[in-house]
């Protein structure tokens, strides 16, 4: 198992290198000169050149990349070109709110999604299945930000139960994590249902029934674990979706997280922050996938033991 982990960790290195090249290349392909932007309209060409050197933007693109990659590896992320604060500090302040938001969202949406999926799968064709799937379709089709605005209108403005935005108490979490997780819960519900229905048709389920086991045991013991194996893979992919969704939801609820930071940084061309943040997202995503694969191995003895 340790060797497996080491191998999988080793496998993430080329992925991260490729991502870093892509991030760097993409940011630099954006039109506009960050040095000029930073220097302001009054600056002389000499000032701009000095700033460019300071920002590490002189030399060929390859040189620039290698310098940036080397610094990043040593966690020298530079300073934000907007606020002049160290990038590590800027990101550090925003990291925990986003992490908590996504974790709360993924936990509730996975649990609820799987539950709805299993209940629908068990009652295939009955009204409860239809209701579950109507809910799921609505969840997929409803844009999170629009749902957010409606909820603010109802719960904050009209009823005054929950704060409109910001970060701090558990009340602050309710609406953002709900809006963020709704799409994921819906996808998980639909996927779990189909995986469950498919597993119910497998030969080993017939064997289980032939032992005289009750439908409850057949469903929860024999079917669910097999049905969850593909669902685990999906949940990893959904996490990436959540990171994307956080950018929008954080803006709607004025959440002091990485998503909003990214939006702000892009509009200001704050290269050091954008690059560091996208690298962070990539590392998170790769790690999540690694965890998912380990869970997958835990659920599936054939992977675990080979």
């Amino acid at each position, binding site marked *: 198992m340790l*060797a497996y982990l080491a191998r999988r960790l080793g496998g993430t290195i080329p992925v991260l290198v490729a991502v870093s090249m892509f991030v760097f290349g993409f940011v630099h392909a954006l039109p506009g000169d960050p040095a000029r932007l930073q220097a302001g309209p009054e600056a002389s060409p000499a000032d701009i050149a000095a700033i460019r050197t300071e920002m590490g933007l002189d030399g060929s693109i390859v040189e620039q990349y290698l310098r940036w990659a080397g610094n990043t590896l040593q966690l020298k992320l530079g300073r934000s070109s907007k606020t002049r604060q160290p990038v590590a500090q800027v990101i550090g302040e925003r990291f925990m709110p986003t992490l908590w938001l996504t974790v709360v969202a993924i936990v509730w949406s996975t649990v609820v999604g799987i539950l709805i999926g299993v209940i629908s799968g068990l009652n295939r064709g009955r009204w409860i299945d239809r209701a579950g799937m109507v809910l799921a379709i609505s969840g997929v089709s409803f844009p999170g930000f629009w749902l957010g605005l409606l909820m603010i209108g109802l719960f904050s403005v009209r009823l005054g139960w929950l704060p409109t935005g910001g970060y701090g108490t558990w009340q602050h979490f309710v609406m953002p994590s709900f809006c963020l997780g709704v799409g994921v819960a819906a996808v998980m519900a639909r996927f779990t249902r189909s995986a469950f229905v498919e597993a119910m048709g497998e*030969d*080993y389920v*017939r*064997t289980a*029934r*032939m032992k*005289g*086991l009750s439908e409850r045991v057949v469903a929860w013991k024999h079917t669910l674990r*097999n049905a969850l194996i593909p669902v685990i893979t999906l949940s990893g992919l959904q996490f990436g979706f959540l990171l994307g969704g956080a950018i929008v939801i954080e803006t709607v609820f004025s959440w002091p997280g990485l998503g909003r930071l990214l939006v702000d940084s892009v509009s200001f061309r704050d290269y050091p922050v954008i690059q560091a943040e996208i690298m962070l997202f990539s590392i998170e995503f790769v790690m999540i996938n690694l965890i998912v694969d380990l869970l997958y191995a835990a659920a599936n003895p054939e992977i675990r033991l080979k």
Partner: protein
Amino acid sequence: MTPLLDITDLTVAFATDGAPVTVIHGLDLAVASGETVALVGESGSGKSVTSLAITRLLDYTGGRISGGRIAYTDAQGAVQDLAAATPQTMRALRGPEIAMVFQEPMTSLNPVLRVGEQIAEAVRLHQGLDEAAALAEARRLLARVRIADPDRQLRRYPFELSGGMRQRVMIAMALSCRPRLLIADEPTTALDVTVQAQVLRLLRGLQAETGMGMIFITHDMGVVAELADRVAVMQHGRKVEDGSVGQIFAAPQHPYTRALLAAVPVLGALSGQTLPRPFDIAGTKLPPQDTVRDETPVLEITDLVTRFDVRRNFRLRGRVHAVEQVSLAVRPGETLALVGESGCGKSTTGRSVIGLETPTSGMIRLDGDDITRSTAASDRRLHREIQFVFQDPFASLNPRLTVGFSIAEPMRTHDIAHGAEAERRVHDLLAEVGLTPEHAQRYPHELSGGQRQRVCIARALASEPRLIIADEAVAALDVSIRAQVVNLMMELQRRRGLAMLFISHDMAVVERVSHRVAVMYLGQIVEIGPRQAVFTNPAHAYTARLLAAVPVPDPARRDRSLDLDDSEVPSPLRALSDPPIVRPLIEIGPDHFVARHSVGGRY
């Protein structure tokens, strides 16, 4: 005495988009305690649906019992009508009263639960034992179905077991609550012959011990003759004939039973003849297959070795010795059969020839030219002159392409014919394999299994090959269709002088088609020679074991004392430091060679 099970006028229908489709029409069937009733018929005859109706697993498949009675006498002597029983009643009966062994041991066990738990849960449920006692009972059951080292096997997962062992686990599970009626649905169809013989003997022994009634569903008349007391023959959802096993084999009344029995290949049918001969279908006797004219081989394989490295954590941990120094030659118009059991390397040998696997060493010659090392020119020639027919005719045809397109593709690839000329050739080929030009417009799913395999054969012929490698090409077909397709292949050989490498595990079919036979075991050829010599005087112990395990479709020749061992075939996966011993074969008769060295420790 009331029978254990008495089915009267059973009718079963399946719901479809339109009107329900009736698949069982007024079936009558009775089974007494201690009796084995074989339910035989081809795919779609309704035999499996009958078993689902008795167990009422039918309820979960969209089927419905629309008429009739299934009277079952339980242990207390009370008669219950299973056709009208509630789900609760059925649940209580499944396990302690009625148990079932399914066809697919590979998929019928839950992949994420340990074998021990899968047996123990039924024991806990029906016998009220606690965890430890149930597990001890599971251990005892595994020993009873002759699984070696049951303590270790209890903790294993199904994927760690061979097919034969999984089927034994299934049987252990079915027997765990001492059922009074056992339904076995094609329990040995997916198994090798020697394993099949082991499982059949096990079932017979267990039945004698427990006195349970048994319904044995099969399409294999050899198995029926081995095992059954009575036989019910089904066709299109109706029982066409019913009688004692002796009566059915000696004097079949219904034309369908007669046709079914005629199509069954009987091992030993050609023991007095040197040449292969097609099946006699519908009373027509075809001449022996005297097609070998030229002694120069089309294909010659010398010392072919194909190994697969097994790595774990980046390090080479061992090798699968799939093919070890195999040498053989096939002449024009000749069929060489490559026989052996799963994992013996026969398919890998075939696949290595056409480059689907990369041989580790050795030489492959086509018409005397070395084609071992793949070059653009040699590949082109290879793929034109050698064609492959695979086992599963459905999986090997592209479902999105018409049959005509699939057949024409090799012609275009090899620049043999285009446009109208290709179309004309497609029509000719379809006619040649017994289909009509109209079939060219069809898609694979519109054809039956036999028709699809005919299409695969037509496609193989499209590039005008000189050699056809048929890898279990008739194994997935029903008996009557199998006989037709075998005859078709032999007819094509007569007409075109084709050479054939016929890879098969079915010894009775091999006897029909082949001029020569090579027996493979653990990657090596242990015996090769003229078919008659190998079949009538098997010189290698493994050949003899393989032949002895084939069920004979003649109840009079049932041999209950047959000595079989329950051992597993050793693994071809070996440590790096432990290569297998391979020595040249010894000639013991004209063109008849046999291995005299120890292969895999046992032979």
